[in-house]
């Protein structure tokens, strides 16, 4: 099945992004040579286990990393390398052009400010909209996200459940109609049904405003259901990227295959061994100590290679963008 987004122009290009942190225990290599494109209007899911470096990539794009981080590579947005921009310029881009939804809404929201005011503040600061008009717009956005009662906007975060606060976060990120929304584990802490509802609503509003969504999640089923493409990360590296349905039904990298085998419908088959240290990661392919198909050459680092899609996923006039980092291909 061909996607209308397959040949869309890249809006954000991440090129060779590497992030490391100096810590008392040693240098943590949190992301290594990460490369991907986020196309106009698409949803790209960055999936992987906790601690594999997904959130570090998001924070690096937004330039929100702590001072002990060392960043290399480029994040090109609308012709400009975000990583080379000064703080003043970046502050203008954050929120208005690229917005981020953090994973813990209770910590991300101001506890002593009414939620309507927090959403409206974005409009007042970035667009100079009057207070009364911005509050009205905040109320409208909340009602689109299912918080329809008029008094909702005048309530405080502590009066809301986790799910309601997450919707406030989403409203805050979308109120300025940004071109890119980065959602970092937006469904974390929400129970299954609510997580699904919030994500469907988020995807709907994203389509309405015509934004692209970079979804960072460890929830594989959520990623499959709402993303166009999926990039799988392991130990700071992207090991496979492709259309979500294709990655799910025909995983190429042994890690992707092992990760999908952990899903309930595939019988909770565990991956042997444990995730490697990010301070002293294995040489070569980082998955090789746990890989059932390892060979001698896995001790050398494989490059990302393009792979032709097969069957229903191949398209005559489009780039399928299927890539994998494994010596088997």
């Amino acid at each position: 099945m061909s996607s209308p987004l397959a040949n869309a122009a890249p809006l954000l290009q991440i090129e060779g992004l590497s992030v490391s942190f100096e810590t008392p225990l040693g240098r943590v290599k949190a992301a290594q040579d990460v490369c991907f494109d986020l196309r106009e209007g698409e949803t790209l899911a960055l999936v992987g286990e906790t601690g594999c470096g997904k959130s570090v990539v998001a924070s690096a794009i937004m330039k929100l990393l702590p001072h002990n981080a060392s960043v290399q590579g480029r994040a090109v947005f609308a012709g400009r390398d975000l990583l080379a921009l000064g703080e003043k310029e970046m502050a203008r881009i954050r929120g208005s052009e690229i917005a981020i939804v953090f994973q813990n809404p209770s910590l991300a929201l101001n506890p002593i400010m009414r939620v309507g005011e927090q959403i409206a503040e974005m409009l007042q600061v970035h667009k100079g909209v009057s207070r009364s008009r911005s509050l009205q717009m905040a109320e409208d956005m909340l009602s689109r996200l299912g918080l329809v009662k008029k008094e909702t906007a005048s309530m405080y975060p502590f009066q809301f459940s986790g799910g309601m606060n997450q919707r406030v976060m989403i409203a805050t990120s979308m109120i300025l109609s940004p071109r890119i929304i980065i959602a970092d584990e937006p469904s974390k802490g929400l129970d299954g049904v609510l997580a699904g509802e919030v994500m469907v609503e988020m995807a709907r509003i994203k389509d309405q405003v015509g934004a692209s969504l970079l979804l960072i999640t460890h929830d594989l089923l959520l990623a499959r259901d709402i993303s166009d493409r999926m990039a799988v990360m392991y130990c700071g590296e992207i090991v496979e990227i492709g259309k979500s349905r294709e990655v799910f039904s025909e995983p190429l990298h042994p890690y992707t295959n092992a990760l999908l085998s952990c899903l309930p419908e595939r019988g909770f088959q565990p991956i042997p061994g444990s995730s490697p240290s990010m301070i002293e990661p294995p040489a070569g392919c980082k998955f090789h100590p746990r890989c059932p198909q390892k060979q001698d050459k896995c001790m050398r680092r494989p490059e990302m290679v393009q792979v032709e899609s097969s069957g229903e996923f191949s398209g005559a006039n489009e780039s399928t963008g299927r890539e994998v980092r494994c010596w088997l291909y």
Partner: protein
Amino acid sequence: MLAVLKAEEVGKAYESGLIFKKRHIALRGITLEMVEGKTLGLMGVSGSGKTTLGMMLAGLEKPSSGRVLFAGEDIWRLRGREFLAFRRQVQMVFQDPEGSLNPRKSIERSIHEVLGLLKIPQREWLKRTGEILEMVGLPEELLCRYPAQISGGQCQRVALGRVLLLHPRVIILDEPTSALDISVQAQILNLLKDLQQELGLAYLLISHQPEVIRFMAHETIVLERGGIS
């Protein structure tokens, strides 16, 4: 099949208000049996009383009505050695693996703490620690680390190892994998199954994930508004 732990018409109510007392019924008329070598699944939406029931079965909360029976005896009538034996043999593993361990104690000290409480001679500690690490699939180099320095799945394995040192007959597992990644969840669930087969443990598995219950449980009960639906 031998029922090790039973709940008979167990209920729990809380009172609120200083002057005008209001009674909230959290659970009412719950009857269930836990059998050696079997897993009883307990499902229900948030706030349906799953954890409260688990705490009452573990003897950490007193029921407002009904009885919890361990080996045929009402646990709230047990005294002295009998009560200690109950405490040892009915254990609970909680949802938050990091919160289950003392952040200021290394993994080795956390394990040794249990061995000390069991009055096991110090010369045997090394051997027993090694055995328990092997049972839960942890490497020895983890012993010198602190809970914040190991992963959530490893913390949950340590918590499980500490529980196993007590040779329990019943383990109440309160959402033991809901804070973990799917890959770690698969590891822990398979480990729990293997341990059950090896040691004949009875599990009460509290979860809101139907697929986890389907994978683990021999029988399932669903709580709804404080009762079994």
